[in-house]
């Protein structure tokens, strides 16, 4: 049974792809929906199910740009789940790519990383935009 996640992006919401087989969750774009949990509850649910049913590593590949505060809160919930799984012995890895012309994105990623002990790379990468 496939349990992939495929949420197309919009002006105010990121593109979200969860690949169950490869244990990879990718999110890219801006995130400032009015009610972020309408969007992120599905993502949080996917992460919970993956961590619950599988014992394989989970990797997050992020290229998020601007997050409003309610999206920040939802992302923190996701990182909390990852941290908990990591402390229980699960292999977790996060890579956050950002446009080096905008240091705010790196600062945002850095604040999430402060509360995490798993490998968390914040990597400058020019986007084609």
């Amino acid at each position, binding site marked *: 049974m496939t349990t992939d996640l495929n949420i197309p992006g919009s002006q105010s919401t990121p593109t979200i792809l969860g690949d169950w087989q490869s244990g990879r969750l990718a999110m890219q774009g801006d995130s400032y929906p009015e009610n972020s949990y309408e969007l992120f509850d599905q993502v949080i649910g996917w992460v919970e199910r993956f961590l619950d049913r599988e014992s394989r590593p989970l990797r997050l590949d992020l290229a998020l740009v601007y997050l409003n505060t309610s999206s920040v809160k939802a992302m923190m919930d996701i990182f909390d789940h990852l941290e908990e799984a990591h402390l229980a012995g699960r292999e977790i890895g996060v890579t956050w790519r950002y*446009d080096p012309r*905008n240091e705010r994105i790196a600062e945002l990623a850095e604040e999430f990383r402060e509360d995490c002990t798993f490998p968390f790379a914040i990597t400058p990468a020019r986007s084609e935009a």
Partner: protein
Amino acid sequence: MDLLGMRESYLRQRIMLCFNGPISRSLIEEIGNALRNYLHSQDAAPSAAMDVFAAYIEMTQNIRHYALRQGYDEEGASATVAVARNERGHYVVSAGNLVEREDGERVIATIETLRGLDKQALKQAYKQQLRQPRDAASRTGAGLGLLDIARKSSEPMEASLEPLPDGRGFLSLTAII
């Protein structure tokens, strides 16, 4: 209609973009988009442009959340928003809306508390607020958004509350990025 008077007033106050009226989810996005394009055309640094956009989004979404929670009608759910540049070249983001008097006073008190916090203390308060349970956080409302704006501001935020004859008030917030 005194369009020339409006124009002169906008020019005098260096207003780049403004809006007054009922504010919907999609209008917030559309005006936000116009704001981003404008900042881009002005060659604003990407980080400054993002801070201005963030202040705009947090203010307008706070107004929407509040109006929805209060069950206000269209008029009550309207917002007055302006983005300007001050004489020192800093971006200024202002938003105003109708509020119950005591809610407005609470926001004024919050802004007053934030005034006394330096960047490090603001960060700490922000992270603490982020850790509040979802329900508790939604009850206290604007907390996280205001902290976020305060962190992105180059000087303390300003707030004022004008009492209105119907018992409500008009709350104005201004952030200088």
